């Protein structure tokens, strides 16, 4: 029995005490494998694992497990995301076994965006279980060797189980408790929602550290560099649960024509610097949305390269 | 089309519209004879079905003449009537019948001229639209 839950690269990096750096990649809206490989290729060597989103924003894309396998073939460690919107507990458990069988070792458990704002709003949703119960399911399968019905399974899927946390969604007072609940349910690592309101995040982390949550779980701070003022405004206005302070929008506006993206990256770099020192933060999850080719530069300037090998 | 005499039913509140009718009479102003008056104690009691029935029986237009919104004898009678007129407009629209065939007017008890004018205006409008069928 190894000392690791899964033995994934991400888990080893975190256990070794290195400051983790993860990336993200959305599968194609089609079967364009080359495009996926190209996008993921930018991340290779720059991050410890790459999150593969699962029909994010309820838009149909290549399935997250399939895209995760393509990354594995490319020598990139995937962090397979799974949402509860599209699968019942039968499909969830069989997919967990399936991805493990193919060598996937990280899994991020999410509720999933409601289909209403995706590209198939007429769909029926599932939500048989919620994200908390999904974490519990993966943990029960891994640690107890049992299915949800209590029946034994033969070989346990040894996955490094992750969960998301949104410190900015309401009600704020409950968020740290929800984080604690996810950890208790079995989450070994947490990736947060994109952080822009640093004051609020500091307060959230203070509470998390006071509760000792950082000692039970690795918390990776979510960073998404702003590409434009329009993107910042859109996120502020139209993305539920996102907290983009007016001061940041002003700062981007002040950067002047052609320099907004650089200012966005600068802000992200400042954040990463602070996260390196922030108590309770074990790494950064960089979500460079449709900006994968910028990741090497950001990683370089953030001083997180080369990535340690463990 | 000039000889088309539209049949119009007017639901009139006794508190304002009917008083206005009396004033009009005193002024020797007469209603066009194609407008049939049905007096009601309060327009708030006029149901959707009351407004539909005239159309079912062959009327070409219907209107409700009641109080001003802020001086309804029974506080909200005319407001309720206006909502029901809106409801009937929607039904007419769904039947591909012009919603302008039904209207609501806010009158004053003392203004006889206005009372007659409303009837004349409604008649003109329905004449323009022609018969329902």
């Amino acid at each position, binding site marked *: 029995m190894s000392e690791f839950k899964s033995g994934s690269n991400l888990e080893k990096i975190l256990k070794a005490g290195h400051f983790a750096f993860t990336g993200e990649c959305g599968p194609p809206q089609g079967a364009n494998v080359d495009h996926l490989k190209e996008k993921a290729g930018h991340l290779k060597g720059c991050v410890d694992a790459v999150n593969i989103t699962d029909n994010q924003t309820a838009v149909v894309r290549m399935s997250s497990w399939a895209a995760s396998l393509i990354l594995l073939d490319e020598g990139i460690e995937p962090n397979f995301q799974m949402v509860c*919107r599209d699968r019942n507990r039968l499909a969830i458990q069989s997919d967990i076994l399936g991805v493990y069988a193919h060598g996937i070792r990280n899994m991020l458990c999410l509720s999933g965006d*409601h289909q209403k704002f995706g590209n198939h709003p007429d769909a029926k949703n599932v939500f048989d279980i919620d994200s*908390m119960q999904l974490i519990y399911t993966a943990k029960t399968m891994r640690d107890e060797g049992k299915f949800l019905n209590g029946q034994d399974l033969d070989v346990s899927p040894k996955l490094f189980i992750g969960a998301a946390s949104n410190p900015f969604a309401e009600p704020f007072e*409950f968020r740290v408790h929800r984080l604690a609940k996810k950890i208790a349910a079995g989450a070994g690592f947490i990736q947060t929602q994109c952080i822009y309101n640093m004051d609020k995040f500091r307060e959230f982390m203070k509470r998390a550290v006071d509760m000792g949550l950082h000692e039970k779980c690795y918390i990776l701070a979510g960073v998404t560099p702003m590409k434009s003022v329009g993107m910042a405004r859109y996120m502020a206005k139209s993305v539920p*649960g996102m907290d983009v302070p007016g001061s940041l929008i002003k700062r981007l506006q002040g950067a002047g024509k052609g320099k907004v993206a650089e200012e966005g990256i600068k802000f992200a770099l400042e954040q990463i610097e602070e996260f390196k020192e922030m108590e309770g933060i074990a790494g950064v999850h960089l979500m460079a949305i449709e900006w994968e080719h910028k990741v090497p530069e950001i990683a370089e300037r953030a001083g997180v390269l080369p990535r340690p090998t463990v | 089309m000039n000889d088309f005499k539209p049949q119009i039913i007017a639901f009139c509140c006794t508190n304002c519209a009917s008083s206005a009718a009396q004033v009009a009479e005193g002024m020797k102003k007469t209603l066009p004879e194609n407008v049939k008056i049905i007096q009601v104690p309060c327009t708030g009691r006029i149901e959707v079905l009351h407004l539909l029935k005239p159309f*079912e029986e062959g009327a070409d237009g219907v209107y409700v003449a009641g109080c001003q919104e802020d001086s309804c004898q029974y506080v909200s009678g005319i407001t309720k009537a206006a909502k029901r007129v809106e409801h009937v407009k929607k039904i007419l629209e769904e*039947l591909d019948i012009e919603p302008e065939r039904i209207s609501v007017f806010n009158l004053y008890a003392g203004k006889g001229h206005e009372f007659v004018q409303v009837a004349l205006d409604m008649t003109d409008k329905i004449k323009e639209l022609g018969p329902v069928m």
Partner: protein
Amino acid sequence: MIVAEPKPIKEILEMVKDFKKVLIIGCKGCVTVCNVGGSKEVGILASTLRIDAKKNGKKIEVEEHTLERQCDPEYVDEIKDIINDYEAVISIACGVGPQFLSERFPSARVFPGVNTKFMGGATEHGIWSERCAGCGQCVIHYFGGICPIARCSKSLLNGPCGGSDHGKCEISKDVDCIWDIIVRKMMEQDRLDELLEFKPPKSWTTARDGGPRQLIREELVI
């Protein structure tokens, strides 16, 4: 109550366009309370059909009838002597009504005149809101007397998702995040610790997922 809304008139007209004798049947139960299927609405729909026929120079005979309830065979029986005189029957009860009519009178052509929406109540005059999903195993006492199964867009049992936005649900600014309300209420009652307990996956066997449901209470069966 069961809350319903009228079907668009055009849809109803299309359903019965080939029939000359139509019977409209209302219900004095829930649909009367939510102003969609009582005797008043039977009259309005009948009048509407007659106006349409008149406008289009067609002949139609529309009869009106409102039953005490359409979800009880003894009341449905009331129309046994008249139903066969009509080519089409429009029920403006909830979805139960037209089915009970169809079952009792197998040769009748029964059409639904309303769309059944949900189990809920009137929060204001003219505004209804869903409260119960009929899952068959009530758990609202764990959540401050509020049902997250019916009222959370994702039926979450372990707290608000990341899409909760200033008290509103991610699906619409017009929809309350019920978890926001649950959390605040439990905090007010100083019972937050109860929400921190993990709620295991729910058994949906008692819900619609367990198949069509039937309830037998032996003590009442005659």
